[in-house]
């Protein structure tokens, strides 16, 4: 894979894109506001005074013209009438007010001079009218008549100057209009270019997003889809050293870890398979040894020495069988079977499983188990797996310190909670590791999977509990399992005390023992016959079916793993052909995982599944219970 290129990070890229977009948009707004809007506003503001001034001057001029007409033409013959006309003229002129005092600031500079001249013309005209009135007052009619020419002359000047001002005003308006048009045209052009540049910018952004975000995301999505399909060899290219590149690198690292773990898990699974097979093969002879010893021990004529030796033989065989049974449970977990679990028992079984390490590693185990501990509701096998993990971790930690090495297991209750703690006096958990303890694939052990504590916590949490590391301030480490106590089982649920034992409790029962191991088959049959039963044997499933066809037994006790027809195949045949016999089929096997062949929810209740090796008395008790319950059911 090509090394990732060092480029701008996505965050920086987004900031740059946003900044460029903001500048682009703001620039348009500023341009429009500063250029176009200002010009339009100024046009409106600067044009209004021009019109106002024109209006003012025209009104005044018009009023003066009217005054002239009224005053001069025609002159009355009667002097009294002329005097009255003069007074009227003076009044009208007075009404016109003084000079306009034009607000020249508001009009364009080019208009100021002609407007000022027009203003002066108006004042002059006003004075001429007053002189005219004065002449009439003085009864100098002829002279007054001559003033008419003077008034006309000033009126002409006024018209000329107003015309000039008007031309200048129109020129100014046209100039502004042209300026505005030019500005508008320029604005349209600028906006056009701006839009084009915006489109180019948008295209560049889209291209950038496609390259920098969309393509890596598509590749990542495809990679994830491959992983979801189980293809954990998938890799995605990390094009750049940005966030998406880092995401791709993380994805690749994750699949690499997954591959490594899968390989490791594969090895473990293979080892488990192997161990299960070995356990099954060893369990049969162990059961034969233990059962034979038990049978022999039933002989009252044995010498004490021989009895002692047989007793030791039976004990060692059972111990070995127990160890194998634990191993099998651990490496070949069956489907979750949730029910009441005694944490003391689970802890003890886990300790038994690891007991072989204790003397070798010079570890002293201290137990403080609450005898009155209520049961918890969970999967017993899986909670045992939790304790095996915790104990195994503790033993690994203790290896790092010199003796004395102590392992303390405790159970207690507080309120409605049941607690189990595994403590050691090892080196403890460093602070930096403590935060990552329950993170998957984190391990301080060179060959650890990093899944032990993670999986353990998940198991505990599935049972509505919690697994925590609990530093107590002293040396060492303590892991605490907290689970809700199961509801107390009603006393009625406990088996009622039965009638006094009979010497031949199985009398009258016809039993069929199916096992390919002759030693097992023989010793079980011998024991059951001694206990009063009539026993038939079969070497595999097919043989058993023949025997059933010949004479239907009261109960079938079958191994699972047999050459020829297996126990499960036989069971399926019975289900098909003799369903009434199904409740009386019991399995006894060194590898109960074979039951999985019956499929999910095989319906075989736990009381009809027995693990080899089993105590013969226990076997007898379970047979009686199954038969009794079926009788009860039929009744």
């Amino acid at each position, binding site marked *: 894979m090509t090394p990732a290129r060092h480029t701008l990070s996505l965050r920086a890229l987004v900031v740059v894109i946003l900044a460029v977009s903001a500048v682009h948009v703001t620039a348009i707004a500023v341009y429009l506001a500063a250029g176009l809007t200002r010009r339009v506003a100024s046009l409106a503001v600067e044009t209004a005074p021009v019109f106002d001034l024109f209006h003012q001057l025209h009104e005044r001029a018009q009023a003066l013209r009217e005054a002239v007409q009224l005053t001069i033409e025609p002159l009355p013959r009667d002097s009294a009438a002329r005097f009255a006309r003069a007074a009227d003229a003076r009044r009208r002129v007075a009404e016109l007010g*003084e*000079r306009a*005092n*034009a*607000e*020249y*600031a*508001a009009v364009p*500079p080019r208009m*100021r*001079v*002609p407007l*000022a*001249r027009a*203003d*002066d013309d108006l*004042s*002059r005209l*006003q*004075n001429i009218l*007053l*002189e005219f*009135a*004065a*002449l009439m*007052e*003085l009864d*100098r009619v002829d*002279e007054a008549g001559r003033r008419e020419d003077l008034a006309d002359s000033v009126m002409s000047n006024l018209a000329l100057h107003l015309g000039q001002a008007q031309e200048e005003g129109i020129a100014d308006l046209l100039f502004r209009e042209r300026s505005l048009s030019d500005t508008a045209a320029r604005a349209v052009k600028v906006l056009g270019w701006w839009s084009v540049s915006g489109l180019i910018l948008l295209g560049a952004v889209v291209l950038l997003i496609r390259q920098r975000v969309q393509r890596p995301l598509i590749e990542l999505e495809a990679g994830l889809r491959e992983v979801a399909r189980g293809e954990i060899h998938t890799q995605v290219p990390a094009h750049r050293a940005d966030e998406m590149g880092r995401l791709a690198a993380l994805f690749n690292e994750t699949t690499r870890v997954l591959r490594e773990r899968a390989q490791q898990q594969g090895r473990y699974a293979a080892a488990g398979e192997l161990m299960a097979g070995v356990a099954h093969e060893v369990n049969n002879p162990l059961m034969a040894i233990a059962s034979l010893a038990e049978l022999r021990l039933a002989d009252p004529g044995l010498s004490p020495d021989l009895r002692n030796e047989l007793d030791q033989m039976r004990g060692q065989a059972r111990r070995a069988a127990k160890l194998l049974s634990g191993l099998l449970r651990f490496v070949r977990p069956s489907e979750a079977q949730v029910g009441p679990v005694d944490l003391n028992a689970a802890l003890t079984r886990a300790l038994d499983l690891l007991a072989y390490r204790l003397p070798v590693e010079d570890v002293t185990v201290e137990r403080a188990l609450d005898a009155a501990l209520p049961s918890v509701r969970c999967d017993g096998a899986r909670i045992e797996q939790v304790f095996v993990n915790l104990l195994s971790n503790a033993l690994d930690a203790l290896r790092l310190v010199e003796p004395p090495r102590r392992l303390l297991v405790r159970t207690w209750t507080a309120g409605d909670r049941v607690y189990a703690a595994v403590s050691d006096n090892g080196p403890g958990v460093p602070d930096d590791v403590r935060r990552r303890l329950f993170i998957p694939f984190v391990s301080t052990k060179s060959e650890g999977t990093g899944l032990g504590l993670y999986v353990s916590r998940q198991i505990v949490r599935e049972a509505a509990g919690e697994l925590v590391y609990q530093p107590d301030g002293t040396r060492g480490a303590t892991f605490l399992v907290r689970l809700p106590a199961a509801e107390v089982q009603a006393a009625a649920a406990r088996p009622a005390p039965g009638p006094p034992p009979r010497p031949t409790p199985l009398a009258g029962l016809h039993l069929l023992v199916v096992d390919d191991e002759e030693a097992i088959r023989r010793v079980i049959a011998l024991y059951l016959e001694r206990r009063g039963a009539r026993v038939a044997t079969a070497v595999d499933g097919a043989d058993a079916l023949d025997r059933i066809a010949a004479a239907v037994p009261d109960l079938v006790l079958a191994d699972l793993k047999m050459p020829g027809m297996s126990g499960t195949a036989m069971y399926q045949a019975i289900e098909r052909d003799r369903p009434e016999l199904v409740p009386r089929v019991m399995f006894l096997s060194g590898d109960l995982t074979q039951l999985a062949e019956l499929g999910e929810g095989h319906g075989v209740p736990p009381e009809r599944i027995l693990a080899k090796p089993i105590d013969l008395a226990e076997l007898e008790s379970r047979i009686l219970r199954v038969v009794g319950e079926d009788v009860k059911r039929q009744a």
Partner: protein
Amino acid sequence: MTHRARLSGSALLTLACACGGGDARPPVIAVAFPGLGEVALAVARDELAQWSVPVQLTYDSMVASTLADVEVDRAQRLVTIPGLVAVVGHGNSRGSLVAAPVYNEVGIPQVAPTSTSRRLASAGPWTFALPPNDSVEGAFIGDYVAGPLGARSTTIYFVNDEYGVGLRDGIRARLRRRGVAVLDEVSVDPQSDFATIVDASLRRGVPEVVVVAARTPETGAIARLMRARVPNIQVVAGDGALQMPALVTAAGAAAPALHVVGFWMPDAPDSLSRAFVERFRRIIGEEPLGTHAMVHDAIMVLAAAVREVGPRPAAIRRYLESLGRERAPYPGVTGAISFQPGRLANLVMMRLEGNRIVRVDPR
């Protein structure tokens, strides 16, 4: 007026201050006060030579006019002078008012040395009037007419522009307050048929005192006509008439009947006035008029602003605004100069004695 004529008419007297002399062009103060302004500028130039302020004084000699278009044109030309930082002008209220928008548009401070129109106060933030306004002057004239002259009736002649109308209003208001009858108000202009309008006005009523709010030619003509028709009549005129020696010529035989308002007299006893009179006599060889002193003060207060705050027009404007407020009033020849409302008014009533003017004893 052609461009050539305008250029020739605008003979610029450029007087550089001796001090300074950096690479930058010195700031220019333009004097737009035809006639008397040239003389005042010469005196101010002499005084500024003592200062270490590089100020150029530019004199616009285009003929004095009461025509608005001439003054607008003058202002529009002045603001194109490179380095212009302030203007002293114009020669009358009408000129100052019509030119004010031009200076306010471009942001050049304008100090009007003799314009009294109260409308200058609202002409814009860049326009400052040195003398008291026409209300104050009108009140001064009204008090004089009613008081020392003891008149009971008057006729007011006024020019129909910002100066004349403003002063007329001020006089009318004070006369009414003092119980003096205003028989007639007559509008005039330089082209008026004075004999006719004076005769018509006298037909309406003969006043004891005539008040004239006009300039020298109108004042002289009215004074002569009134004196001829009403021999003992007194004529009181506003500052606009105080153009010497033109007023003496215009008034002719009626000169002794004239009372004219001014802003300063050369007989003022303070040291600044004495120094100014001495300098004026040395340079010009004549007695200064109040108008000379006013133009001189306008130039000097702007030069002081350049010296204090530098040549930026905005800074000069702020300096002028601050006088009498954040700063002490500028000590001018005509009195303490500030542009605050309600500042002290230096007004003097004068009469003509032969070819000279003399202060009227207020008693």
